[in-house]
């Protein structure tokens, strides 16, 4: 029986300059798979040059793909934001001033999470090995990875740093406040005397029965 399993076992290998992904598994004979097909993942390992080797189960590999591939998709659009964490055992986030931090949480309760710091080239290598795996026709496993989608308009807006986004509205508000302040400093114009009030009594010009009023003052009618 053990011999039969070892004969059925397949290993898929994908190499890049900085990493090597190796996936082991078996064909799922219950749905008629055979030959070189790999329908059940029994284990995987990711070897980095000069770094500890990562190993895990099927769920860890799927979580790695579900986190790293959307992260790379966002980077193409110039949006660097964290992915994963929470219930997922993998998290990836941008690192200051450059690079990326990949965190892998072990399923063992007392094992500290493993953190890898990657540069852009190493991340590109990781993306390539994961792409090679998911597009390999020998891997006949439903991956349930969402297809990459265009960004939401809000995400596109957030690509511009907050300081630069605030320059225009804050500049406008400041200019408006300055203009209002200068306007308040200016003296109010005095009410203009009407020409009729300046003229002496007994003017030759015809006048109405009501007395002329200065602008801004109500006409005085019906006074006792």
């Amino acid at each position: 029986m053990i011999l039969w399993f070892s004969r059925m076992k397949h290993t898929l290998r994908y190499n890049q300059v900085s990493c090597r992904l190796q996936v082991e598994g078996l064909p799922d004979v219950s749905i008629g798979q055979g030959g070189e097909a790999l329908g059940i993942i029994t284990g995987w390992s990711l070897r980095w040059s000069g770094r500890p080797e990562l190993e895990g189960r099927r769920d860890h590999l799927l979580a790695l793909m579900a986190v790293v591939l959307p992260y790379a998709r966002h980077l193409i659009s110039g949006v660097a934001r964290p992915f994963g964490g929470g219930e997922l055992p993998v998290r990836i986030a941008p690192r200051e001033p450059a690079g990326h931090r990949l965190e892998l949480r072990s399923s063992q309760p007392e094992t500290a999470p493993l953190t890898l710091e990657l540069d852009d080239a190493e991340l590109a290598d990781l993306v390539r090995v994961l792409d090679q795996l998911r597009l390999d026709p020998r891997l006949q496993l439903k991956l349930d990875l969402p297809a990459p989608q265009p960004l939401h308009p809000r995400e596109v807006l957030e690509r511009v740093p907050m300081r630069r986004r605030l320059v225009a509205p804050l500049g406008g508000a400041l200019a408006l406040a300055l203009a209002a302040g200068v306007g308040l400093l200016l003296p109010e114009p005095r009410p203009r005397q009407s020409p009729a009030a300046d003229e002496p009594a007994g003017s030759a010009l015809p006048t109405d029965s009501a007395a002329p009023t200065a602008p801004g003052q109500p006409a005085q009618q019906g006074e006792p």
Partner: protein
Amino acid sequence: MPDAAPAAAAPPVAAPPLSRRGLERLDLLLLSAEALDLNGGEAMVWMSEQMGFTGLFANRVELWKRRCHNPLRRATRRGELNPAETDALIRILCALADRLYPLLRALLSGAEPEAVRQQRWQLFEGRLSELVRERMNPRRVGVQTLLDPQRGARQRQQLILALAYGAGTGGYERLRASLHDPVV
């Protein structure tokens, strides 16, 4: 067997035509591929023939006419490209990026000595500037920014990153989704 096929290999759903902004980015990415490879123009035509796109781009002039929909071009063309043409251009770009991946990686790698890396960036930026000056409208602000040594640095780096993460068959869907990003 059919139900066990990887979901990621499913054909992408039909998308609307690329926006002018998307066409601009697509042409600049193709231009970056040309800047990385001195024979890039020829490689593009050859790749188009190898990938079976002769029905869409019968010759190099037809390929050039599609690229001239970039609004930053000196001789820009109005109108929009149909999705089959833009998808073919994106596939050609991904194949070119896959071929150029060792160069892209060398530009991005932090393990390379800094002096060597700087020299590689200078070569790329010098060649890209030549191509941009030759083909793009210098009165456009986008062109002036791209040519500016300081202000354009981030955009040039972004072009290389997009090529690296969009290289190969696997990168096609990512790059295509990114080119369809909304314009805000």
